[in-house]
């Protein structure tokens, strides 16, 4: 809003100078008052953040150095013992790390590839394309839910649909969820199926690519593969990078699906990191140990994200950087 002009008779340069100084003073006062209003407006969020995010975060940092027991609500400072136990004694911790890394290593690239492929298909002007876009997005809305995980369990159960279909083709029924080799793949498949949100972002990215680029390529006689390889892909790299980071982070935080479909079994092959943290915290009440594990997860994600950013210089192309 503009300031209402002060009613001062305009006469002489001195007066003008005085007036402007006064105005400046008043402005800074108003600025402060405006700030206060702003803070008031965001105060619900701020209170929520401090109370429900910052305080628990700091508490969990403290808990990580204690043997806090959820049942009795007591704990003592034990220094780095939690971390020592994690890295040198806990056999299941190693298992949970390898399960999580395997899951991320396969589910993230596969989901991105799938999302990009579907986005390319839907980036056309055909009739009904809007309907398809919505339809393909639905799995990611409901995909994180418990209901879908339960359905997945049914699908891959010994009497499930998947075995019924493979039996038609003449295969022996497979113990998808009971076999340590296959169980994690059912979860990776579930993750790939939930490609909706990276797909939407890819779609937005694809529509940003100027059509002149394609026209120019066509005039040069580029095949559709060449257009994809030399126009679409380079111009899409910032979007790919963004999706990669987001999926990397959410991949490490996978919980619901494994909790419902496999409960971490068989043989801990799907004992994802957060699942193990949950088990330690709420089935064994070792909140201190669980907090320590959570902080290591944060560190892992932070380091991997940093590496991804460092490496991004080599392959991500920003149009604005150099002509």
């Amino acid at each position, binding site marked *: 809003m503009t300031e209402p002009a002060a009613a001062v008779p305009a006469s002489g340069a001195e007066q003008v100078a005085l007036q402007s100084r006064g105005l400046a003073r008043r402005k800074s006062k108003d600025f402060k008052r405006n700030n206060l209003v702003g803070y008031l407006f965001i105060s619900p969020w701020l209170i929520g953040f401090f109370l429900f995010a910052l305080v628990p975060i700091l508490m969990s940092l403290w808990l990580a150095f204690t043997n806090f*027991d*959820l*049942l*009795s*609500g007591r704990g003592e400072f034990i220094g780095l013992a939690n971390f020592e136990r994690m890295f040198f*004694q806990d*056999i*299941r911790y190693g*298992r949970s790390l390898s399960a999580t890394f395997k899951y991320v290593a396969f589910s993230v690239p596969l989901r991105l590839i799938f999302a990009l492929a579907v986005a390319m298909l839907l980036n056309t002007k055909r009739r009904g394309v809007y309907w398809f876009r919505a339809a393909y997005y639905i799995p990611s809305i409901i995909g994180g839910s418990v209901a879908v995980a339960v359905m997945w369990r*049914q699908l891959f*159960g*010994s*009497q499930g649909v998947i075995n019924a279909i493979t039996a038609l083709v003449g295969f022996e029924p497979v*113990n*998808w*969820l*009971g*076999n*340590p080799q296959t169980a994690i793949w059912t979860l990776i498949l579930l993750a790939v199926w939930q490609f909706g949100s990276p797909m939407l972002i890819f779609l937005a990215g694809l529509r940003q690519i100027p059509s002149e680029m394609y026209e120019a390529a066509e005039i040069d006689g580029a095949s559709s593969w060449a257009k994809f390889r030399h126009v679409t892909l380079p111009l899409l790299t910032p979007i790919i990078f963004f999706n990669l980071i987001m999926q990397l982070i959410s991949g490490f935080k996978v919980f619901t699906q494994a909790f419902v479909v496999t409960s971490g*079994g*068989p*043989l*801990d092959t799907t*004992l994802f990191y957060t699942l193990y943290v949950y*088990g330690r915290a*709420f*089935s*064994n*009440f*070792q909140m201190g140990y669980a907090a320590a594990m959570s902080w290591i997860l944060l560190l892992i994600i932070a380091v991997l994200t940093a590496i991804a950013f460092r490496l991004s210089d080599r392959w991500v192309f920003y149009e604005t950087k150099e002509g």
Partner: protein
Amino acid sequence: MARPKLRLLTIFVLTALLLALGTAVLAQDEPVELRVVWWGSQSRHDRTIEVIEMYEAQNPNVDIVYEFANFTDYWTLVNTQAAGGDLACVMQHDYAYLAEWAERGLLQPLDPYVEQGIIDLSNVDESFIAGGRVDGLLYGLSLGSNSQAIILDVDKFEEAGVDLPDPQWTWADFEAIARELHDALGIYAYGSPSLGDDQIWTSLILAHGTNPFNEDNTGFGYDDDGPIIEHFKMLLRLQEDGVIMSLEEMAQSAEGPENSPIVTGDAAMQYQWSNQVVAITSAAGEGRNFRLWHMPRPEGGRPANYLKPSMFFSIPTNCEHGEIAADFINFFTNDLEANEVLFAERGVPISSEVREHLRPMLDAIGQETFDFLERVSADSSPIFPPNPPGYNDIRNNVWLPLFHDPVLYGQISVEEGVALFRAEAEAILSQN
């Protein structure tokens, strides 16, 4: 500027005072709110809610608020409440956790209420409530007695032409009978749950003559892992020959009593706690012929069965209405009409008067359960002390993932597994 502020403050303080006064006055007329929580199946929820309504009808000044969940969610719920110091006045408790909770000071001893006559135990034999004592004090009142059992599908035995086993059968007998059943019928002699779960481990050790844990809970109470090795080798043999369901298949099968192999007719025997038999038989429906049998014991060993309180009602330390809570627990234990509704669903009632009252009303499987527990009480080992702190950790992070699963998946040898189990479990126990 100062005056309006002062006026505002005065109004504020006055309002606050008035409000406080209001609630204080109201509190006298308002019914006491008593919270009750339990875990269980739908049938238990229905029965318990009905008894709560009966109690409320008789005690208009008490308003009962209740919560219930399945076993796993229940412990998540109450652990969260314990951390917040906000436990319900009457909470269902389990033998596995009772000592741990009592020792952490979360529960009140019930003895004062018994002495005051609020909880009447005149019709209750000590053997039924002994399991609720920790260091001599009663921290949980048993809601029913239980024992481990093997359910036999008698029709399957007849179909196969196999005689019912001797009540004092051994694991060797079990193996022989299982093979006969499997050969004759082509189905699994035994389905799920695993015959290698942690409660079979403890009863196996008990049957061999010692308690699973030493007196101060700092280590195992036995030195010889031989019985465990022998037991798991038998399971592996039977699993390999398809006589019993393999762990891999169990991991795959759907949950819930209605999907258990004995109910679907895919198996002839099933290991179950006696109080869960009702759920199994009602899932199986009419016309099935199930009997309860002693757990197999070692050759020349003690009985593997012991009488266990199926669950308790406890009163947490933070409860402000201890006497009302105790009165409710007494109602639950001794009232004949209430027990007609509860109908031994939590296990065979501890009051002899209630048992006599219910007996004529029982159906076949109910009578079978009552009879089974009487047979067990005549031929059982004394219950071992409640599991030590850290038992949960041993079960969830050692027994199952480091020993039971890898051995039954054939990933490591039994000897290797049992050595790892001992080392890891004793490391946990040594912290007690």
